[in-house]
């Protein structure tokens, strides 16, 4: 039953997308058709997915399909359902936010196309999680990549949008090519249906292929290079959807493939843990050095994907070393962090988008003082910041807590391997946590606090009510999931059981025992909120009847401080970026003050992605040189191309006759 509702939701999405394309002449009508359809579909899908997750049922359906190797096999289990829930839940505020956000583009751009691709993106992601046949999966995967590609190119006029979308397209297809190999190897026994896959002894190779193929979508270092390009270029609500949900499709793929591969080897866990530690620390370090808010958030997606990979790695290590608590905590932390990251990263991208939409800039050092001018947007960005730093009482803490607990179980266990893994996991999570606090106090402090650093930031108003409501939905979800974490984890038990290859009963017992501390965490969080509220009340009573004045900020006696003299983002993080400069390789362009009465001086810093600069650029340049040999084949002359086709056909014919 639930599968039929989901199919209907997908149909509604596609229909409203097409309808929006048909009425594209009128931007208002196109928006209305697409958004109302998408909202309806999301609500339908949400209901169906919640039914599946709470009932734990498995629904399967198969139709014949005339494509070789393909069958229209769909299935929904708890693992699919979790991803469907975050997809449909995040899509609601995303679509709402898009309405006022895209309105200003209405006269110049084709909004019908934008909404068509948005609907297609949501629908294709739903198909990715439902597909139970390799061909169907790859077709959906491709649709997802292509529709998001067209959304990244939305602002075609901007050169950076064009180059970003090109990088994204190439990265997506290299990943897809590896997935093709993965599925061909899995389906060597003839059928490409998921339930007939056979591993046939080369599980290790398949695991590597899966990490490379799905990891390039998820954004594992060093395959993350497309994220910091594509996320800033896309419209903000699309960035929220891409960062919150689409990159998680890579994680879904890894989860799903793990269920095919059977019992894990220890080195799989070590590899994933290593990837997680590298992605986590490098992600947050590069985020620290960024000047563009959305680029910074994109690097934070790399960081959070790293945390997810760490949980997954610890879980695999727990399985392979035979420690069920570590396994369920690791997997539980990973899947819970998938959910939480979708919520707070969605919120952060939307509020950053609202901010950039109003001020017209994403450069942090041109902003400032927005907490006064955009109180709602700023406060919601603050909620997202606290959540992404993994601080209690919000949701980020709950999932990081589970990953930490996996590490702690390693510390008390008797197995040497899990102990070392636990130590590595815990210490790098601690480092990432500290760096994330530095990074988000920087963003929040520079953009929303202090005085406006430019005219843009001075004369602005808060986001429109629709935008505010859509951000509030996600902000409230962050708080609710944080405070109700034990219940959220309970709902995830069927998923953990699937990933850990454990019967539901055993998994339930292990998860319940291992995550019992979450109840105490929740009570401490509730006390924390209560005491803070009480303290606020007390303090406001304390000042009653006293003289409360305002004055200028203390400036050590300097007579006329200007807003430009405030601490800037690069200065704020300089002690840290300085410590890690061997990795970051920040470039500085300095114009030193000159002469006895210097008039001007300037400093500019720029931190390009080292993997793009040092790894991919040389490889791509080499490939281009290599393939340049064949350039003489290209003439642009149609006759010659017809000749090529003829020759090919003849060769094929003779080959067949032989």
């Amino acid at each position: 039953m639930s599968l039929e509702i989901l199919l209907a939701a997908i149909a509604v999405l596609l229909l409203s997308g097409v309808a929006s394309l048909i009425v594209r002449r009128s931007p208002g009508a196109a928006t209305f058709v697409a958004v109302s359809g998408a909202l309806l579909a999301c609500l339908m899908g949400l209901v169906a997915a919640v039914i599946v997750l709470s009932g734990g049922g498995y629904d399967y359906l198969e139709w014949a399909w005339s494509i070789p190797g393909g069958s229209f096999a769909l299935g929904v289990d708890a693992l699919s359902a979790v991803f469907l829930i975050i997809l449909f839940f995040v899509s609601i505020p995303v679509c709402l936010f898009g309405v006022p956000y895209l309105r200003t583009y209405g006269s110049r751009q084709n909004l019908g196309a934008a909404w068509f691709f948005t609907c297609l993106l949501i629908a294709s992601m739903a198909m990715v999680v439902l597909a139970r046949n390799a061909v169907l999966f790859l077709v959906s995967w491709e649709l997802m990549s292509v529709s998001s590609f067209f959304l990244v190119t939305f602002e075609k006029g901007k050169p950076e949008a064009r180059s970003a979308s090109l990088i994204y397209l190439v990265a997506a297809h290299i990943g897809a090519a590896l997935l093709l190999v993965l599925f061909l190897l899995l389906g060597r026994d003839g059928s490409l249906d998921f339930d007939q896959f056979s591993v046939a002894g080369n599980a290790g190779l398949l695991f590597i292929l899966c990490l490379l193929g799905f990891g390039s979508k998820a954004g594992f270092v060093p395959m993350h290079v497309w994220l910091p390009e594509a996320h800033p270029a896309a419209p903000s609500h699309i960035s929220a959807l891409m960062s919150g949900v689409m990159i998680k499709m890579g994680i879904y793929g890894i989860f799903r493939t793990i269920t095919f591969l059977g019992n894990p080897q220890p080195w799989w866990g070590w590899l994933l843990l290593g990837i997680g530690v590298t992605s986590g620390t490098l992600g947050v370090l590069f985020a620290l050095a960024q000047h563009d808010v959305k680029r910074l958030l994109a690097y934070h997606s790399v960081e959070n994907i790293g945390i997810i990979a760490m949980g997954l790695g610890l879980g695999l290590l727990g399985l392979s070393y035979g420690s069920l608590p570590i396994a369920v905590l690791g997997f539980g932390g990973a899947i819970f962090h998938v959910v939480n990251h979708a919520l707070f990263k969605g919120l952060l991208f939307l509020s950053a988008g609202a901010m950039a939409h109003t001020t017209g800039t994403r450069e942090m050092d041109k902003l400032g003082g927005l907490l006064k001018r955009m109180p709602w947007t700023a406060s919601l960005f603050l909620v997202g910041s606290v959540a992404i730093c993994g601080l209690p009482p919000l949701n980020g803490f709950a999932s990081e807590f589970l990953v930490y607990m996996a590490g702690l179980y390693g510390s008390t266990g008797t197995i040497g391997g899990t102990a070392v893994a636990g130590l590595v996991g815990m210490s790098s999570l601690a480092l990432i946590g500290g760096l994330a606090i530095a990074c988000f106090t920087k963003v929040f402090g520079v953009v929303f606090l202090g005085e406006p650093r430019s005219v843009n930031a001075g004369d602005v108003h808060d986001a429109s009510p629709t935008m505010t409501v859509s951000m509030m939905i996600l902000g409230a979800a962050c708080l609710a999931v944080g405070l109700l974490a034990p219940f959220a984890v309970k709902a995830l038990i069927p998923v953990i059981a699937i990933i850990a290859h454990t019967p539901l009963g055993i998994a339930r017992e292990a998860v319940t025992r291992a995550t019992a501390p979450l109840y105490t965490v929740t009570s401490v969080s509730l006390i924390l909120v209560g005491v803070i509220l009480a303290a606020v009340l007390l303090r406001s009573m304390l000042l009653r009847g006293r003289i409360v004045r305002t004055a200028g900020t203390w400036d050590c006696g300097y007579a006329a401080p200007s807003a430009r003299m405030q601490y800037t983002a690069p200065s704020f993080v300089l002690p840290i970026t300085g410590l890690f400069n061997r990795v970051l390789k920040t470039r500085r362009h300095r114009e030193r003050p000159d002469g006895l009465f210097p008039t001007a001086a300037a400093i500019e810093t720029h931190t390009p992605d080292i993997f793009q600069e040092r790894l991919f650029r040389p490889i791509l340049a080499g490939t281009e040189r290599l393939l340049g040999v064949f350039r003489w084949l290209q003439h642009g002359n149609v006759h010659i191309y017809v000749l090529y086709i003829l020759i090919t056909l003849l060769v094929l014919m003779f080959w067949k006759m032989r």
Partner: protein
Amino acid sequence: MSTIVLSSLHIVLPLLAAPLLPGIINRTKAILAGRRGQPVLQGYFDLLKLVRKGAVYSRTTTWLFRAGPIVNLVTIAMGLLLVPFGGSKALFGFDGDLILFAYLLGLGRFFVVAAALDTGSSFEGMGASREVTFSMLAEPTLFIGLFALSRLSGSMSLSGILYSTGVTGWSVGAPVLVSGAFFMIYLSENARIPVDDPATHLELTMIHEVMVLDHGGPDFALVSYGAALKLWLLGMLLVGVFSPNLAEAPLWFREGYALLGMFVLSVGVGVVESLMARVRLLKVPQLLIGAGALSVLAVILVLE
């Protein structure tokens, strides 16, 4: 029932007695410098005076500036729920409470730093920048040290880890190394010499003091009280690590040990501050990374 009463007393006691600790430190410094010094109760007098004052706020600031000291104080007070005192279980001791402990302090720090940035002052920005840098370096050390102790004691809760590693642990030496590392964190997080100088006069060189330059009146009372409470909270952690196994000891001995430990620690801080100058800011990371190395050594000893 009595354990709950005792654990609750261990929360009330710091709330009342914490302002004594800066008094003891200052008195020690004064005596070593040959002065009489301020009364030990000076902390209370200052708080009383500040609480009765009005307030002056910078025009630049928002509600966040007022929220900073409150959130900081409350998170530190919440920490008291998790850290045991004198070998009795903490009120909310549970598996993994050490993670919540560290992240509660992180939440407090987030808001202190944000409140500092809310003033738009370069000086406070500088202090905030240093604060996040040094605490970022201290955090992994804390976790690695706790990991070693957790493995040694076989417990995942601060209530099980602290005051328990003594007999078996001292022979291995790991608790000694971790104590050394935690002493550095204690000095750094509480903004003491050699990392920061609470008595400095020049805004440019401050770390913690500069972040609260614009706080006055009741807000500053919250800040000072929070600082005193943090001295107590992290002191409890350190005393608990540097302790024999007190599981079998009678109650009076455990309480006495912990109280004496807090006193000796405060005197120790006073002695360190009298004997040392603060190190250059650029050298502070080396100090903290050194502390991290001690923690790592402790883990190696424990892992064998």
